[in-house]
């Protein structure tokens, strides 16, 4: 692999981490969705580049799923759902932006330390890909725990899943990648349909998950 190919792969994976960071400090649902669409587009580029570098044409399928389904259909659908449910107000966060960013930096540092240390044997591209992927996964989890709003938690989960796809495509020659990305898309579609069909807005009067916590099955 030429160093240019490596650098581009590196750049794209790094951009995905950056997009995760941008997601961390969004305080409006619409802008969060836009950042997610960007996140998914970067993922699509990164996967397509891996497909080209590894000469693995089946990965183009994964890349197009990422582009069409995740970067276009899902954000548009969520936009509509948000508009219909009337919840495009500011997001409530559990902790402040500063603390969230610090936590994010710590998580990225952690994943670098863990992944680079345990994979000295693997080739450089796969190593760095895995480290970046773990960062994206952990940042996705951070988005999920720092938001109280159900839709933004779902967006956090979807960004986490993008990290997994990055890891799966980075692992050279991994079988079933396409199948797994399809399975994940089904899962995400279910979640989005779930928001709409379960009418979380109507049922719980709010998509604020704090309202869900009211119920513990233990009311007197």
């Amino acid at each position: 692999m030429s160093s240019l190919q490596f650098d581009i792969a590196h750049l794209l994976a790094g951009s995905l981490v950056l997009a995760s960071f941008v997601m961390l400090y969004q305080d409006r649902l619409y802008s969060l969705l836009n950042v997610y669409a960007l996140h998914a587009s970067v993922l699509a580029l990164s996967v397509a580049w891996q497909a080209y570098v590894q000469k693995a044409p089946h990965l183009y399928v994964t890349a197009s799923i990422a582009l069409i389904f995740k970067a276009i259909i899902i954000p548009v659908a969520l936009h509509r759902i948000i508009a219909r449910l009337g919840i495009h107000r500011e997001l409530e966060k559990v902790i402040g932006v500063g603390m969230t960013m610090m936590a994010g930096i710590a998580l990225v540092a952690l994943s670098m330390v863990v992944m680079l240390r345990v994979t000295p044997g693997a080739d450089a591209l796969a190593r760095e890909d895995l480290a970046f992927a773990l960062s994206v996964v952990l940042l996705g989890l951070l988005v999920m725990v720092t938001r109280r709003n159900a839709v933004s938690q779902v967006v956090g989960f979807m960004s986490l899943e993008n990290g997994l796809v990055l890891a799966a495509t980075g692992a050279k020659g991994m079988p079933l990648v396409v199948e797994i990305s399809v399975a994940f898309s089904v899962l995400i579609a279910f979640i989005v349909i779930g928001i709409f069909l379960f009418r979380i807005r109507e049922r719980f009067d709010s998509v604020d998950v704090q309202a869900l916590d009211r119920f513990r099955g233990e009311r007197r």
Partner: protein
Amino acid sequence: MTLDVLSAILLIPAVSAAVLAVLPGYRLAAQLNAAAALATFLTSVSLFVVEPVSGQYLLVDDLNKVFIVLTTFVGFTTSVFSASYIHHEIEIGRLTPAFLRFYHAMYQVLMFAMNLALVANNIGLMWVAVEVATLTTVLMVGIYRTHEALEAAWKYFILGSVGIALALFGTILVYMAARPVVGEGLDGMVWTVLIRNAAAFDPALLNVAFVFLLLGYGTKVGLAPLHAWLPDAHAEGPTPISAVLSGLLLNVALYALLRFKMMLAANLGAIAPGPLMVTMGLISVIFASLMLYRRRDIKRMFAYSSIEHMGIIVFAFGMGGPLANFAGLLHMTMHSLTKSAIFFAVGHIAQVKGTQKIADIGGLTVTNPVLGWGLMLGVVAIVGLPPLGIFMSEFLVVSSTFARAPWLTVILVLGIIIALGGLLLRVGVVMFGEPKGPTAPAEASYVPMFTHLALVAMAGIYLPPVLVTGFQNVARLLG
């Protein structure tokens, strides 16, 4: 021939799911559901007769035979219970025929997914199967469309999704560890290839992978502190689903965990997975048994009891060794049978009384003696009183680990005793207190419940030698 048996286990539920999805008339659908489950069970029993051959995608060995037969058996008895349960739900209008069609189709999809997870010889395929099983149960938990049910389904959905996402990351790491040794492509995910070559894998990568797998599949097993979805999902879904969740789905996730534990054990450089599992198991036991004291909802209470028992089982497997593994397997079997029997009883009781609140149920042994004593027998079994099966398996767990780790075992016994107190305290009121609520006789099907309880009672006194040797083989396999 053998491949036919394997595919039949998967095809019967898949085809019946398709048929049930379009079949009108819930009575016929319920019968067909039970018939399909029976056919799957009988097919799975034939695995013992024909010598199975493993392929690239599907696998049968001593370990998963036990799980498959248990799963299909409880799947069958639950479908029989489900038939009488939904009859009542239709009468009171909690479910409509359209929902029931969906329910029956989903029941078979769940059976399909669990069987697929158990026979998969590919860790990617196994992951997909566990995901499908999770999705179907989420849909079934939310089927009543009440505020509480939707909320429970949502919680289960989000936590379950995070769990399986972490499990996938672990799976990818296992592939990364395997790739330098077994080469690129499909082989890197075939379990039989992986276990054969596990000794040469990079231990550091395997360690990290196992942490993700433990957190991921551990969420589905319901280990504390990852258990938050479990009580809600059990309490708010239809009771047959609570029975299947507790009795089977937790086992399937545990099975996935055991497979990876075997892989780690085969690699000398990797950390021992045992201590991690022992710690999580003990935390679950203690936490869940303390939580039993404050329960007001009867299904939620038994859900916490499931967490406790999964804790005991994971503790036993974590300790390892032929004897502890044997005890863990036996305990898993006994818990599946007993807990689903309890949910069968609780389902009918909640229907008779029209509530799941412990405070509103009382004097069951007077008002509905058969159900009441059935539940009482189940509870006596589940808390581990002699001479029933769970006493036997808990005794084995304790005696096989006491010599090696006396203090840990003391903590475990403490947890079991706390749970015994909590359950008996709560259930005593339900059983013998002032009769409360409607006293109409139940239109129940007692056969599944008493079949399970009879099996558990028999296991406490006499274990057939065939079963013992079978379990011993598996226990040796688990290392």
